[in-house]
């Protein structure tokens, strides 16, 4: 990580020396840095790489500028990004050196305004850059093909060079050096973070500043920039060319590094371009970048070397020696079969789009194939296709059955080099436990929730795709197994795969069961779920056949155990064909993971994980994404300011302007489901779930409820979240409430005759859970809101900025009208004193509680949609 940061920082700064228009030509440099950078993160102890980096560093520092080396050792504080990255590496290079380089470049930028000799300088830099690869043995191999790609890029984006230079001259004239000097100090300062960079990128009209920030992006941590990816891409699509030019190198660089990032960009670019007129010239700009990424020209330059560097990773992944291409029957089948037995034959059809090869199937294990994006895109497409088809079915029951059967077909294509973009770790999807999938409640669309079994891996791009394990975990092939000389050469691999999987070891009996004779009784199957809990029941342990003494048990005990066990099982919801998701969501996550793991053929692998995702088809999730960003920003603000407000931003993946995926909130059911299933008031439900008023469990749950309620009340107020019926408010097992569905925020609200006029939804039921109007908890609630508002106000810019940038070129309903940003700003009440704010909070709470419209709206929802 640090190595990348450092390297690209140096590279990036080098680029600043050029007039912005030439940045296009110089894409070569960030990308060439990627040749070396790519190899760094994967090698844990890349001492050779880092030493070569340091060599390079020296070159950088000494050759272009004649500054004495003693000054580089000066005590000026390192850039925060760099110091962050340095934590884990030994100090081969001084952070100051890098900072120095940065400084020089900036100075040069200023100098540049006057004289026009940078061209010569540039070539020097280029040479420096060019000098890197030979020092990195792996990097050299990959260089030539990449250059050719770059050429194409240039053709794609850059206009003809003469024109570019003219423009650059004009820009130079506009630049004002005095302004830049204080800017420079800011940019160098510790405080300069991604948020500020984005803000300057958005606000500054100075090409130099834009270009600087564009390069500076390379120095930020990936996660930091990733958060603002929607903003960056929206700017790229909708703003001036200069901004786009500044952003592009970074995007291209990151796309080279990661397939996941590439796809994110593809999807976001597609989604944010969708609001434009086709005729718009800028439209083609986003679309063009999208096409470049899709065409897969942005291959990782270091992939070869990376793969070679990690031959060991294979061992930990596949339980068997079998390759994915596979197995026995194929091996046995003669040549004539090779074409016929492709597993794709029964794959659900996915519409193939024109920009990709329809022949390449999901399971291509070969990373060398040009379509490194294809498997994942196909995977997502099949998921969307399922959603589309489900929407046509009339009843929930049919939808559920259909979903299960569609997913079981999808399973045939797995494992494959596909992943869930909402996850935080690298993995391959190996199986979709299709029977666990549920259709969610929605009137006309068919969003559905699936659980996905994945195997964590080092890198989704280079780690080998796990081998398929058949559903039934082949244990015995019965009578055939003992037949002598049956001439199956392929029997050995099966046995091999069998023994390498630890779970199977106990199944030896099963292999021969049929052949031993008639009176074989079934051996307790060791790998089933029951074995571990068997011992806790006396009955089972007694059953052993050795005991000859008659054993007596009381009938009363059996009856008692039965009722006890039923009482002990956590309150689960009844199965309701009209609301299939209620049961699935109510089941505690850990319980579900355990259950699915036991039933899965991959469950025994140590890197097995369970993920879940909601697939939404026909819904625009861009607003949800915006809400996620705002929520995350506020969450980090509150954490920073130590305000114990609790909110749960859930991840959103925008795939197009009408489809996407949502990371489900685990262990949470909607208030509607709670009320419908339990037929209790919210307070009584709390008492039932957590225990009496004075129990610790209840008090904890109550505190959680208050903290989350305060958090979401603020969110609802600031973002003007509407459509707050009980189906859109979740309650998790710890007592937190979580608002979902941000379809109506800011300037948009459902056309519902002016319901929901209050600042947020606060029903008397909520107040009851908080212990009533006079309770301490209720006061705590109001105090939390006040603290939260003050904290949010302090960092208002960070919040506004997210929304403001996304407004560019957007036709989303939440930006309807011209006053969206102004009213948003007003809701932060910058002009009020803290006392006045306190009064405001009191007013809002009072108003919301007394609000008739909230009740009316709930009633309206109950009548129209059956939501309680």
């Amino acid at each position, binding site marked *: 990580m640090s190595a990348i940061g450092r390297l690209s920082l140096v590279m990036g700064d080098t680029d600043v020396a050029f007039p912005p228009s030439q940045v296009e030509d110089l894409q070569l440099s960030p990308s060439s840095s990627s040749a070396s950078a790519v190899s760094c993160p994967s090698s844990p102890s890349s001492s050779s790489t880092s030493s070569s980096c340091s060599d390079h560093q020296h070159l950088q520092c000494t050759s272009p500028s004649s500054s004495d080396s003693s000054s580089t050792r000066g005590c000026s504080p390192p850039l925060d990004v760099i110091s962050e990255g340095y934590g884990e590496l030994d100090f081969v290079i001084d952070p100051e050196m890098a900072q120095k380089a940065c400084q020089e470049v900036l100075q040069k930028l200023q100098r540049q305004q006057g004289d026009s000799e940078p061209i010569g300088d540039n070539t020097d830099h280029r040479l420096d850059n060019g000098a890197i690869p030979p020092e990195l043995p792996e990097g050299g191999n990959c260089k030539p093909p990449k250059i050719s790609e770059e050429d194409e890029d240039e053709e794609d984006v850059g206009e003809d060079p003469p024109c570019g230079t003219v423009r650059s001259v004009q820009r130079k004239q506009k630049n004002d050096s005095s302004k830049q000097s204080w800017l420079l100090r800011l940019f160098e300062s510790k405080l300069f973070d991604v948020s500020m960079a984005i803000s300057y990128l958005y606000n500054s009209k100075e090409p130099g500043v834009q270009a600087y920030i564009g390069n500076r992006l390379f120095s930020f941590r990936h996660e930091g920039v990733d958060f603002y990816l929607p903003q960056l891409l929206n700017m790229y699509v909708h703003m001036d060319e200069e901004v786009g030019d500044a952003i592009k190198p970074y995007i291209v660089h990151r796309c080279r590094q990661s397939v996941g990032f590439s796809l994110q960009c593809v999807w976001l670019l597609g989604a944010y371009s969708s609001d434009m007129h086709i005729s718009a010239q800028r439209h083609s700009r986003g679309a063009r970048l999208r096409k470049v990424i899709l065409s897969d020209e942005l291959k990782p330059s270091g992939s070869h070397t990376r793969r070679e560097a990690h031959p060991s990773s294979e061992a930990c992944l596949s339980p068997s020696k079998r390759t994915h291409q596979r197995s026995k029957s194929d091996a046995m089948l003669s040549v004539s079969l090779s074409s016929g037995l492709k597993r794709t*034959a029964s794959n659900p059809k996915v519409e193939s789009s024109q920009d990709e090869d329809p022949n390449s199937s999901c399971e291509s294990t070969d990373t060398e194939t040009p379509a490194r994006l294809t498997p994942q895109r196909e995977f997502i497409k099949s998921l969307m296709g399922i959603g589309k088809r489900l929407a046509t079915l009339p009843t929930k029951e049919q939808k559920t*059955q259909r979903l299960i059967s569609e997913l079981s077909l999808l399973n045939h294509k797995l494992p494959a080099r596909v992943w869930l973009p909402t996850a935080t770790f690298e993995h391959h999807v190996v199986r979709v436990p299709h029977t666990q999938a549920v259709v969610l409640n929605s009137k006309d669309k068919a969003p559905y929730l699936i659980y996905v079994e994945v195997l964590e891996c080092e890198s989704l791009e280079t780690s080998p795709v796990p081998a398929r394990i058949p559903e*039934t975990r082949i244990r015995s092939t019965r009578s055939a197994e003992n037949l002598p000389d049956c001439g199956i050469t392929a029997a050995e691999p099966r046995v091999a795969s069998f023994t390498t999987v630890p779970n199977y070891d106990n199944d030896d009996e099963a292999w021969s069961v*049929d052949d031993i004779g008639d009176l074989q009784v079934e051996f307790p*199957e060791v790998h089933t779920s029951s074995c571990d809990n068997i011992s806790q029941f006396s009955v089972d342990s007694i059953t052993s056949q050795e005991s000859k003494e008659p054993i007596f048990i*009381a009938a009363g005990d*059996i009856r008692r155990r039965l009722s006890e066990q039923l009482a002990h099982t956590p309150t689960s919801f009844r199965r309701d064909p009209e609301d299939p998701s209620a049961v699935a969501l109510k089941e505690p996550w850990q319980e579900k993971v355990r259950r699915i793991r036991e039933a899965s053929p991959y469950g025994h692998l140590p890197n097995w994980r369970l993920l879940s995702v909601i697939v939404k088809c026909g819904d625009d999730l861009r607003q949800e994404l915006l809400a996620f960003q705002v929520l995350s920003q506020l969450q980090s603000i509150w954490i920073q300011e130590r305000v114990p407000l609790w909110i749960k931003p859930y991840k959103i993946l925008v795939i197009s302007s009408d489809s996407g995926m949502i990371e489900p909130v685990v262990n949470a059911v909607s208030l509607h489901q709670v009320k419908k299933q339990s037929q209790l008031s919210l307070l009584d439900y709390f008492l039932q779930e957590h225990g009496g008023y004075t129990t610790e469990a209840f008090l904890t749950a109550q505190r959680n409820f208050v903290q989350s309620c305060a958090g979401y009340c603020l969110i609802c107020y600031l973002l003007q979240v509407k459509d707050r019926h009980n189906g859109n408010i979740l309650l998790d097992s710890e007592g937190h409430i979580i608002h979902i569905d941000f379809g109506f925020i800011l300037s948009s609200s459902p056309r519902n005759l002016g319901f929901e006029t209050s600042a947020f939804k606060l029903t008397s039921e909520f107040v009851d859970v908080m212990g009533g109007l006079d309770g301490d908890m209720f006061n705590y609630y109001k105090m939390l809101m006040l603290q939260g508002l003050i904290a949010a106000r302090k960092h208002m810019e960070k919040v506004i900025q997210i929304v403001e940038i996304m407004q560019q070129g957007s036709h989303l309903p939440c930006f309807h009208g011209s006053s969206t940003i102004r009213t948003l700003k007003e809701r932060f009440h910058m002009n009020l004193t803290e006392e006045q704010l306190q009064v405001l909070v009191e007013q809002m709470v009072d108003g919301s509680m007394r609000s008739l419209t909230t009740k009316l709206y709930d009633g309206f929802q109950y009548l129209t949609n059956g939501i309680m």
Partner: protein
Amino acid sequence: MAQVDKKAGLLRKSSASRKPLKEKVVLMYDEIFGLEDPAKNNPRFWEELFLMKVNLEYLEGKLESLDGDEVMKIKDNINSLFHNCIQALAEEHQIKVVNALQTLCALLRGVHQRNKSTSGFDIINMLMGFDKAELRMKALMESLDAQLCGDRSHSLKSLCFKLLLCLVTVTDNISQNTILEYVMINSIFEAILQILSHTPSRIQHGYDAVVLLVLLVNYRKYESVNPYIVKLSIVDDETTLNGMGLVISQALSEYNRQYKDKEEEAQGGFFSAFTNMVGSMFIADAEEKITVHTNEAILLALYEAVHLNRNFITVLAQSHPEIDIVSTPSVAAPTMPIAPLGTTPPSLDMLASPELPLDPNLQTSNLLITFLKYSSIVMQDTKDEHRLSSAKLCLIILTCIAEDQYANSFLHDDNMSFRVNLHRMPMRHRKKLADKSLPSRPLVCAVLDLMVEFIVSHMMKDFPMDLYVRCVQVIHKLICYQKKCRIRLHYTWRELWTALINLLKFLLSHETTLLAKYNIFNLALLVVNLFNMFITYGDTFLPTPSSYDELYYEIVRMHQVFDNLYCMVLRVSTNTGQWKEPASKVTHALGNIRAIINHFNPKIESFAAVNHISQLSEDQVLEVVRSNYDTLTLKLQDGLDQYERYSEQPKEVAFFKELVRSISLNVRKNVSLTTLSQDVLLKEFSTIS
């Protein structure tokens, strides 16, 4: 050449009643049946022969009419005919290939009809000669394999299958068909798999492929190493297995559909009004009409797949849309004579596309559901031999399924719930359940329903003891799984208890007649032990505490039956005789049930006495039961949750041998009809050339 064919055809048609004029091909056949080498005078004889349209009737008839000595005389000519047929298979000219295939079919069938009694060795000698047999058969199998795997027309492939089916069914007892040794050596298994894995070819030939496979698997199954068994058992390619599952599923649901149609026909209109009026008098008649021939070959294929291949279990649960809808007949259908129902490949175009069709009215179904429905129909009537063996096979398959861990896991999966409309025998004392009222439940409920249905509907004089034992064993295996995995199935167990108690009652009342034929104690023991499972392990799998109370209620209510059973087994076990041992086992097994009866009966009586009630209501009895558990002690019995695993050998060998024999006969009968009709289809080739 086409002209000649046409002319011959015309001539034959016009003079159908008279002795047919001799076509050229017939003259050539005569030459072959002569003593001379036909190629001696005409070196292009064989070449010409395969350009000529085959006259199957003549060729077969001629072979049939020869007796042993005559055949030996012309053996050389027949050998060279066979040899040349095989050579012609490699020809570019499709017409030659077609004619060669048909000639081979005729040869095989003709030879078969001639020597019904003799073994395969004679046939080999006659057709190929012992010395060359291995070489010839290798060539034949190789070219058939090439035809099947290659990019040939469907009718050609279909003919290849016909030929293979002819080959396999040359003898009644497949294991005596020595020619198959060569088919074992030169495997066409891979070709069959390829046909099954590839959707269009599966639709055309899936049925034949599956039947062929199942016959080959049964060749000398118990005596030697059959490579087809070995290979089938390790197939793990989902596409192929799925393809096989679809073929089976389609054949079974075609049967279900036909049955349903007939049933509706029988019940519709006037007839239903009539039966309603007169009552159930005529139901038996209606029954007769509804019988549709069962398809044992497909059922056996399902069995072999489930039994041999563990991966196939997943296919059972593979969803696909229900195929109850009448599909339009396939291309070949219009010209085909209507073959016996259930034995012809059903028209298979529903699942042509890998994409599931998007009809909201279609219920999703799967192979298991189709199979359960099929079983429910077959089990309704076990009077005739075929249906009895079909029902038996169904129960064997269910036994295999109930033993399988994975199958159990999806049977009990709450999320995989379906509405399964089982066919129930119309009976006087109960109404037909409305289809719609069925809730969607886990599949195991349907299996249990089917078993309960079987138990209540077969208590007759001609008692199917074997089927009853299997049926109770299936229930036992399912409950063992539930106990082991602590699955609390929401099932109305009471229906099962009632059915089982009634079964015991039936056994008691027909003790003397049944005991003459069967060991009724074995069945009684199984039933009593099922109750013991519920009594001692009920806490692990019953859905609610009150269901445990209900169990006691039911036992106490029907205590008379258990008392009588106890008396009977006590009596038999105290006498010496062959039933002493089994009867005493039942006596021991009854211990807990008797303890329950002896414990609660006095309590209930005293409760009635104290409260001055003559007839206690169910709630009152349940109350007594609930309040008196604690003073009751039960004995834990050993091995209640253990069972004997199913094994084909040696118990079922005879059954399967007989079954395969009847399938062989059926297939042969069928091939003869369809091969001829294929003739018409093959006109396409005469125009190609």
